[in-house]
């Protein structure tokens, strides 16, 4: 085995291979930074080049880019609060508040360092487990995987902040949104309203970008000013290093959780980083700072999201079963070279496996190093008045949401969820449980379905299930005890635990939630058999919780919001309408013209910068967008009026 490792390592002495690796790292870094663009966009850009290369060179290029996407996507998550990719949403929770406190450099350097170490630990673990990986994966049957998913869901309980009832409801809403589309066994289409778009469910990118990205952008715009006040950068990046050294235990545990989430098929990078975040909060003695800018909340998910990718290679290469979208693409590229990953891979293509592992490790290190040295400069972005950054970010987010499936449905969904996310934020509803619920719905339901239809209820007696069940019990007891002891509880920073909009909107929102879950419950009764279990499990408790919440709110004494809140709300709605306007413009005039008009009108009309500057900005924006469209071979439909 070690000979193969050395032969593979030798490849990197070839300047061509090294250059390819660097090219991949650069492409991955840039694409990772852009919100909404992730591994898939990376490969779509690199794919045309790959067809001309030999298999090793192609793998170096591909893996090089995929290895750094989850490192650089942290940048937008931390600085703007818009997740660079779906997997980076967990980093937003604590990373973005840190940036607002002027500690962006600290958060970034801690993130990159833990990302790098996580990736390396993941690689080492991957290498060591090559000989035993197959039996390891085969040990986990559907029931055990189901229990792992449920355990992950229970972590949502730690993320509910100061509002357990609202948190529980948010998680249920996430589960409900996750069950939109055809049920796992295709028996029935749920909540699709005869819309073709909803058949496959709403893509994760759209949900993460909406609930965190759009909501955050609107909020920042309404607040006005910059993300952080200009203060001395100090030794922020040094502090980040110290943080990682101090919390080395979190790094190790986080990356091991990540590797596991990657190795087990069907869990995925996003679930992995949320599980890691959940475990950090669960294990912490003092939880009051989580969600308000606790550096541990950055280190946890960041050390997991790179090691997930490393772990992902096991099912991809040894079983031919990709764990996530990037791995699926890697698999596709291997097919292209006539290599069918599978049990034979270790015997026949061991050196190729090591080429992949080495590329991952080296690219991971270079990429993190690159981002690390960029972080002081990048942190300065938070000093720019946010309204000037906004058009560029909005255009990129729209672009990102559209490119994943090339369907306008994704943009509608993102805007609608953006409004929901903004309302949740203003009304003190935690958003993390919502996303956790959404992410874990599909695998949980799939494995529940498989467990029941394969084993009836005997699966409950399997030893693995019992062990994991006990772990789940401990986790639940832990949550309840924490609540009873009234331990200081984490709350999402932006909500400050309180309702910002006053009583009437709050009551109205809760009432709307009650109506939605009740309607969903009613509809669920028409679903046959197992297809109904999941929507029922989400909506029945939700109806009770929503009713209770409504009663609390009606009886509670809430102070009227100060007058500036009214102004802020109006402003926020105005900005939201401008985004909707942008969408309408795209529909009418096509993407190019709409982008130009939106960017210019926003900068000149709303922000009030000089028309010369606005023109230059607009021209740059449009040319970059068109260049990216061309690179991605993206097809924007012509506007209705210009067709």
């Amino acid at each position: 085995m070690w000979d193969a490792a050395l032969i593979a390592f030798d490849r990197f002495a070839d300047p061509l291979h090294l250059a390819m690796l660097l090219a991949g790292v650069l492409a991955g870094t840039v694409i990772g930074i852009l919100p909404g663009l992730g591994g898939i966009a990376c490969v779509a850009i690199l794919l045309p080049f790959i067809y001309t290369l030999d298999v090793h060179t192609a793998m170096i290029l591909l893996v090089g880019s995929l290895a750094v996407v989850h490192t650089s996507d942290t940048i937008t998550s931390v600085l703007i609060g818009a997740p660079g990719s779906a997997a980076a949403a967990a980093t937003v929770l604590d990373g973005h508040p840190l940036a607002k406190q002027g500690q962006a450099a600290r958060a970034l350097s801690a993130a990159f360092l833990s990302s790098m170490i996580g990736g390396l630990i993941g690689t080492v673990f991957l290498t060591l487990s090559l000989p035993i990986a197959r039996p390891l994966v085969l040990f986990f049957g559907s029931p055990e995987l189901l229990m792992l998913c449920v355990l992950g869901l229970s972590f949502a309980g730690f993320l509910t902040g100061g509002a357990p009832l609202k948190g529980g409801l948010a998680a249920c809403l996430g589960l409900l949104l996750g069950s939109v589309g055809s049920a796992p066994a295709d028996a029935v289409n749920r909540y699709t309203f005869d819309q073709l778009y909803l058949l496959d469910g709403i893509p994760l990118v759209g949900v993460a970008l909406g609930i965190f990205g759009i909501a955050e952008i609107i909020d920042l715009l309404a607040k006005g000013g910059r993300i952080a006040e200009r203060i001395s950068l100090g030794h922020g990046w040094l502090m980040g290093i110290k943080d990682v050294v101090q919390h080395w235990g979190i790094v190790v545990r986080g990356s091991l959780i990540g590797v596991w989430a990657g190795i087990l098929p069907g869990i995925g990078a996003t679930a992995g980083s949320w599980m890691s975040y959940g475990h950090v909060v669960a294990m912490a003695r003092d939880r009051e700072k989580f969600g308000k800018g606790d550096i541990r909340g950055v280190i946890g998910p960041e050390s997991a999201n790179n090691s997930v990718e490393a772990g992902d290679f096991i099912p991809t290469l040894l079983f031919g079963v990709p764990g996530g979208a990037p791995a699926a693409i890697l698999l596709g590229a291997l097919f292209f070279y006539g290599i069918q990953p599978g049990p034979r891979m270790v015997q026949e293509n061991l050196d190729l496996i090591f080429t992949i592992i080495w590329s991952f490790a080296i690219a991971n290190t270079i990429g993190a190093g690159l981002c690390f040295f960029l972080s002081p400069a990048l942190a300065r972005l938070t000093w720019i008045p946010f309204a000037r950054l906004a058009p560029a970010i909005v255009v990129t987010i729209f672009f990102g949401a559209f490119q994943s499936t090339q369907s306008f449905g994704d943009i509608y969904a993102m805007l609608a969820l953006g409004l929901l996310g903004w309302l949740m934020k203003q009304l003190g509803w935690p958003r993390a449980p919502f996303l956790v619920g959404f992410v874990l719905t599909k695998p949980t339901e799939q494995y529940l379905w498989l467990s029941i239809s394969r084993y009836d209820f005997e699966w409950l007696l399997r030893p693995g299930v019992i062990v994991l069940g006990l772990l789940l019990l401990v986790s639940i007891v832990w949550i309840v005890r924490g609540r009873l002891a009234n331990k200081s509880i984490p709350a999402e920073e932006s909500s400050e635990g309180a309702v910002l909009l006053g009583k009437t909107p709050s009551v109205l929102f809760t009432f709307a939630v009650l109506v939605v879950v009740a309607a969903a419950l009613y509809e669920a009764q028409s679903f046959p058999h197992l297809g109904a279990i999941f929507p029922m499990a989400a909506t029945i408790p939700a109806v009770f919780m929503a009713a209770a919440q409504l009663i609390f709110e009606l009886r509670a004494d809430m102070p009227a919001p100060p007058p500036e809140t009214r102004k802020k709300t109006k402003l926020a709605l105005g900005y939201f309408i401008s985004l909707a306007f942008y969408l309408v413009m795209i529909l009418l005039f096509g993407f190019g013209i709409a982008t130009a008009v939106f960017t210019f009108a926003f900068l000149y009309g709303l922000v009030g910068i000089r028309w010369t500057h606005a023109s230059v900005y607009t021209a740059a924006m449009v040319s970059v967008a068109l260049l990216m469209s061309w690179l991605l071979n993206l097809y924007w439909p012509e506007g209705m009026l210009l067709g």
Partner: protein
Amino acid sequence: MKRIQFKAGRAISRGLVVLGLSVALAGPALGAAAPYYEGKSIEVIIPFPVAGGSDIWIRTIAPYLEKNIPGNPKFSFRNIAGGRGIPGMMEFALKAKPDGLMLLVSSATNYFPVLLGDKAAKYDLRQWKPLLVNPVGGVMYVSPASGVKRVEDLAKAKDLIYGGISAIGLDLIPLISFELLEMDAKGVLGFKGRGEARIAFERGETNIDYQTTPAYNATVVPLIKEGKAIPLMSFGQLDDDGNIIRDPAVPDLPTVPEVYEKLKGKKPSGKFWETYKIFMPSAFAVQKILWVKGDAPTEVARSFYTAADRLDKDKEFQTKTDKILGGYPLLRGDRLEKTIRQAFQIDAETQRFVREWVGKKYRVKLD
């Protein structure tokens, strides 16, 4: 409108220039027109995501087509994923002009909604012309723990469990085979892919499985060598007259109808056999098809057939694409046109029968 006219005008003038040049250069071969595809580019709609089976298939053969189609057109691709492939199919149905510059790749996923009468699938495959066809095969195998050692044991085998994705996808073929052969087998559906179903097989959660021939060769043959799997039968391929014959990729294995004869001592017949005959070809024998609109000029089809004939003799193409094509030849569309037309025709009675059967047995609600 203006732009289109402008484009057309440019294309015509460019065409004239090219024509003039080639006439001037051709000299002795005076009168031979420039190839139809000279200086043109072809956009292929792929109703699946990047790096899916059909995506890899067309992207792999495209460079060879560029080289071998007279006039050397450039290929570009557009993936319209999601919605069970229906949005991508509709895009082609509505937007493609019959000029051979927009083509479509399709796979079994696109045929089953039509055969099952799904109302959302408003496209009519019979109005299009197949340019290239690539078959794929499927092999069923069992685990030794199931008690089945040979196909003869299937009659008395108990509690066979099969892992599948969806009763109205490719899994329909093995599920129909179970009914046809009257096996005591139960389908557990809801796996995310055939790969995950195979992991469940290796884990012992299921004990009967099938894989397409390329995946079978890469992932199941090693299991067979280790004694962890026993191959049973293939779903078969079609000959030129549309009869089911042994799969050339696994010639030692009997086909499903052969197994029926062995078990029952007579030729297969009945409703399940009718269903098998209708669904098997579109699932396997004519699985991947490159289409053009039916009323496209004859030069379009002729160009692709020329390329297919050239590739048939191209050693480099064959060794390089062997694994992607699954060991099957890249066939000219006209050779299989009759078979393809038949494959997408279903009588109302069989359709009703299948819908009722998947509804009752696998609780699939089709609207």
